[in-house]
């Protein structure tokens, strides 16, 4: 590239900051996705055989006709379907997801109450599994084809095949039932009256096993990915250049190779966030963790469709947001992308 065209690149970069560009690109993709989930949400419920009032208001089954008609009118179910869709959209725009008849509260309130325990759990377990996965993957590459590498590869293979609920149950048996070190489940010790740091520690103790359970599976996934990417890089030209400079093996691994391995890892984290939320359903159920996952499960069992659909929408939005962060991080690591 000659000087003048790279000058042009610089000028363009100054006028539109790359972060802004990346965000716009991601949002362009996100809007149809969210729109589609809205449409699917709306029609999915109307596919349920039987009276929609029965579907929305599980408790309405067996209620008298006058009550049902009241609900029907209240929810606009007596309007033509496209008007119903319009009403639905405007309600969503106002963050009104309807009423949860099971919880006797607005859906939004129910969800917001359960949101932060899940976010806490997710951040903690993703953090631990990312750090662990990177460390183990790099270690495997450092000691490639020695017993250390083979042990890491074997352990991650086995962990990768373990059902999350089974890991959870095993951890409970070992740490709660046999060793009596950690609580079996729940968010905090009920009625302990702890505050401040003592309370935080109490929540931490309750969170250890669920976070570990969720984290172990993803630890295996991330370790396998980082190890594979690092192996691909071991014999590449720029790594040889780094070695030729006399850099220590540690610098070569962490400074030159790892950023390349982080790119696919970040992409995977973004893509897998959906399935991570799915894992949360199982784990929160096993550990009675009062988060979104358990709420989803309860809503599914009780056919509380308003809650279920709102969660589906919200988790899609959550995944989109996480992907935006992933895109920004990737673009920051790899500046080649911001040229076009």
């Amino acid at each position, binding site marked *: *590239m000659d*000087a003048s065209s*790279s000058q042009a*690149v610089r000028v363009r970069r100054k006028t539109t900051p790359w972060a802004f560009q990346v965000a716009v690109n991601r949002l362009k993709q996100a809007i149809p996705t969210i729109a589609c989930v809205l449409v699917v949400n709306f029609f999915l419920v109307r596919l349920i055989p039987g009276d929609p009032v029965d579907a929305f208001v599980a408790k309405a089954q067996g209620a008298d006709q006058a009550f049902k008609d009241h609900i029907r009118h209240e929810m606009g179910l007596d309007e033509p379907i496209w008007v119903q869709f319009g009403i639905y959209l405007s309600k969503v725009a106002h963050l009104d997801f309807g009423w949860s008849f099971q919880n006797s509260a607005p859906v939004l309130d129910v969800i917001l109450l359960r949101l932060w325990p899940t976010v806490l759990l997710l951040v903690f377990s993703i953090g631990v599994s990312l750090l662990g996965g990177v460390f183990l993957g790099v270690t495997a590459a450092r000691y490639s*084809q020695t017993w250390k590498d083979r042990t890491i590869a074997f352990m991650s293979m086995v962990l990768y095949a373990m059902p999350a609920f089974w890991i959870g149950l095993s951890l409970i048996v070992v740490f709660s039932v046999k060793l009596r070190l950690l609580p079996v489940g729940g968010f905090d010790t009920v009625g302990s009256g702890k505050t401040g740091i003592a309370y935080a520690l109490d929540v931490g103790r309750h969170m250890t096993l669920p976070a570990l359970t969720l984290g172990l599976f993803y630890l295996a996934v991330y370790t396998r990915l980082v190890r594979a990417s690092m192996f691909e890089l*071991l*014999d*590449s*030209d*720029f790594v*040889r*250049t*780094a*070695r*030729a*400079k*006399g*850099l*220590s*093996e540690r*610098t070569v691994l962490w*400074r*030159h190779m790892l*950023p*390349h391995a982080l790119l696919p890892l970040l992409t995977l984290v973004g893509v897998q966030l959906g399935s991570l939320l799915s894992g949360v359903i199982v784990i929160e159920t096993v550990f009675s963790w009062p988060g979104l996952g358990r709420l989803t499960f309860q809503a599914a069992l009780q056919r509380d469709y308003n809650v279920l659909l709102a969660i589906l929408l919200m988790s899609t939005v959550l995944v989109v947001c996480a992907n935006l962060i992933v895109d920004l991080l990737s673009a920051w*690591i*790899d*500046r*080649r992308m911001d*040229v076009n």
Partner: protein
Amino acid sequence: MAVLKVEDLSVQFRTAQGVVRAVDRVSFEIRAGETLAVVGESGSGKSVTALAIMRLLPRHGSTRVSGRVMLGERDLVGLADAEMQRVRGNQISMVFQEPMTSLNPLMRIGEQIEEGIRRHQNVSAAVSRRRAVELLDQVRIADPHRRVDEFPHTLSGGMRQRVMIAMALACEPKLLIADEPTTALDVTVQAQILELLATLRKTMNMSMLLITHDLSIVADTAERTLVMYAGRIVEAAATGEILARPAHPYTRGLLGSLPKPRAAGRSRDRLTEIPGAVPPLHALPAGCSFAERCQRADAVCRTDRPEARTVTHDRLAVCHFAVAEAI
């Protein structure tokens, strides 16, 4: 005085076809301030030799290096890893064949130059940064203050090779190994890079090991030339001697396949090529490795391996019929 002395260097790889001797008892020395060229086709073992000196061969259990590589009093073959790291990029540097892939695409050019400096010299960030800009200027990259903060993808192949050279020279090494530094570049850029290497070698008073498959570029750059074939050195002499009076039939073949500038007017003069190909290294013939392709070959060539013989003072050829002939 010799900067580097290679004695009986051999490299073996264990492959699916069996053990391959990619470099077979190679000995030579590089003198202070000289350029030594190693010429050969691909598969002749010239790059493996360079990587073995730098100890940059892939570290699988299947590679075995024997012999000695003496840098002053020290044998690099047996050196501890940490010691070897102090040598690489500091006393011996290397420039590779593929400028497009040899730079780390995720790091700024300046950082890549500076990290070598800071590894070997105890200097501040400001000093190493100034040095990086200086080096870019030295390898004649325009506007070095701006380039130092750019990522490699903004540079052309020739520019990247200049950056590679700047990186290699950062700590003023005694010896620069250039492994086919111009092969991947356009012809016009090739000449510039070679000229740059020659100039820098002179001003910094280094020695250079220039590895190439192209005999035509050694004339202006190298004082002495080694010719390698199938893992062995087959001829060693002053460059002028080799070009004028090659002693080994293989060298003569290589020269015959080059267009001769002086003969440009004579249209009858056709380029000759060496028939056949380099034999597979896992199945080398019993006698001379080149016998199958040699017009000169005799019964003795197919049974006995030739030893190195002195043709004239200071020149060797590994051939039963080695005689220096003018072509």
